[in-house]
């Protein structure tokens, strides 16, 4: 299984842990990644607010690079996933947009490169049976609230990721790893995403609602697949404590990090030391379960 892997800007900064863990587990699962040379920003949450054509062009420049490689694109950031898919959609359904983007890039792009999330290729290309076979360790009953957020699942006809209101892809991976994927109502609520620095007052409220619901559902940790969700839910727990006096102490762990643990990898390799809320209790639980 060979793909062009698009890391996204956060891979070098706020989501270094997602990047490290994804690259660590991919080869063990028989996945070969090639990074497109000179990849650039997809335009993420800003470009579409300022200029539609800018957002489509920034994403399309990367899709064109991947088309030249003759591969399909795999991303691990939900925002990159969304912008790439929207660019493909806009280019293949609006001929005028396609023309404008061709003029901007100096080359025509037809919107044909398939864009997949890392979670999708595990379930759809590798299959759960093969994934299970590769595992060396188990989550042994760890209760995990899978949090999907907005950008993976919406808008549904463009994202086409699992079920838009009740996605279960990450839950299926957690079950395969021997954990319990909790049924809880805030799987696709919004954490406040791009407002993190401009309106942290709102982000704190939105993030708290999600963390509180996960706690009520009995979660020992929240599993995420989006860098913005991760940093909002993780970093803002200190603000929640200050504003409400409530200490949730809820580890926000990338699904790829949980997968790495079940492949017997170290915390260092998976970037677990970068999490702000310490995942130590979760790690202790997994390790004690393994011994017993």
């Amino acid at each position, binding site marked *: 299984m060979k793909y062009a892997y698009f890391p996204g*800007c*956060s891979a*070098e*900064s*706020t989501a*270094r*842990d997602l990047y490290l863990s994804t690259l660590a587990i991919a080869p063990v699962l028989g996945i070969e990644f090639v990074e497109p*040379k*000179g*990849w*650039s*920003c997809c*335009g*993420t*949450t*800003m*470009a*579409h*607010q*300022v*200029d*539609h*054509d*800018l957002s489509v*062009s*920034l994403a399309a*420049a990367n899709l064109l690079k991947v088309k030249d490689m003759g591969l399909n694109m795999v991303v691990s950031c939900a925002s990159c996933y969304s912008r790439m898919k929207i660019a493909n959609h806009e280019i293949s359904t*609006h001929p005028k947009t396609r023309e*404008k983007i061709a*003029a*901007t*890039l*100096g080359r025509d792009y037809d919107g044909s490169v398939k864009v997949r999330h890392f979670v999708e290729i595990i379930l759809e290309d590798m299959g759960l049976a093969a994934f299970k076979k590769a595992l060396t360790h188990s989550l042994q009953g760890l209760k995990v609230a899978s949090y999907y957020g*907005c*950008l993976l699942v*919406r*808008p*549904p006809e463009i994202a086409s990721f699992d079920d*838009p209101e009740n996605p279960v892809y990450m839950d299926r991976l957690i079950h395969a790893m021997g954990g319990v994927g909790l049924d809880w109502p805030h799987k*696709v*609520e*919004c954490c*406040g*995403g*791009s*407002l993190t*620095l*401009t*309106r*942290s007052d*709102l982000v704190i*409220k*939105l993030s708290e609602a999600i963390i509180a619901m996960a706690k009520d559902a009995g979660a020992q940790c929240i599993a995420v697949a989006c860098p913005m969700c991760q*940093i909002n839910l993780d*970093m803002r727990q*200190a603000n929640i404590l200050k504003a409400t006096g409530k200490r949730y102490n809820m580890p926000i762990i990338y699904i790829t990090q949980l997968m790495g643990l079940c492949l017997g990898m170290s915390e260092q390799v998976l970037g677990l*030391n*970068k*999490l*702000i809320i310490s995942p130590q209790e979760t790690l202790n639980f997994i390790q004690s379960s393994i011994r017993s």
Partner: protein
Amino acid sequence: MPIRIKKEAVPEGISRRVKEISGIDINGCLQCKKCTNGCPVSGYTASSPAEIIKKLQLGAGKELLDSEIIWTCVSCSTCYSRCPMEINMAQVMDALRVLAEETGAATPDGNMPLMNKILLGTIKTFGRTYDLGAMALYKAGTASYMKDMDKVPMILKKGKIALLPSQGADKKMVKQIFNHLEKARKK
């Protein structure tokens, strides 16, 4: 709750421009308010997606562009996903942001337009976002030095933010995109 608007010289108000920019026709809206009920921010902000659409339909003028929700909207697309008439409200919001910038509407709390400008500036320069640089410029631009300053040493120590901008991007292509579209906008 009554919805009040101020009509202006142009009979269709700004709704015609919204359609031009976004390609979205809002006239099918049934005011069922599924968008508003699902909206994560409408409970915390003045106005709501359904109210914005109603005001557009009634031919609201520029005062609509001062609405807080234009900038508190997180583009989560819950509104569009649940709309029985498939109105892409997220794109309508994008069009309203463009119009707000064009007409010099009120600067919203948190100054999102400045944040967008700074982050896009880092992309234009480096081809990729540069978070730490953008944070510093944003803080200087909004004089909010103290806010979140406790976070910076912590995320730096954890290696959860890059100290220096990335150097690996195809900067030539990214510059070409920005320059081409800036020229196109001026025309």
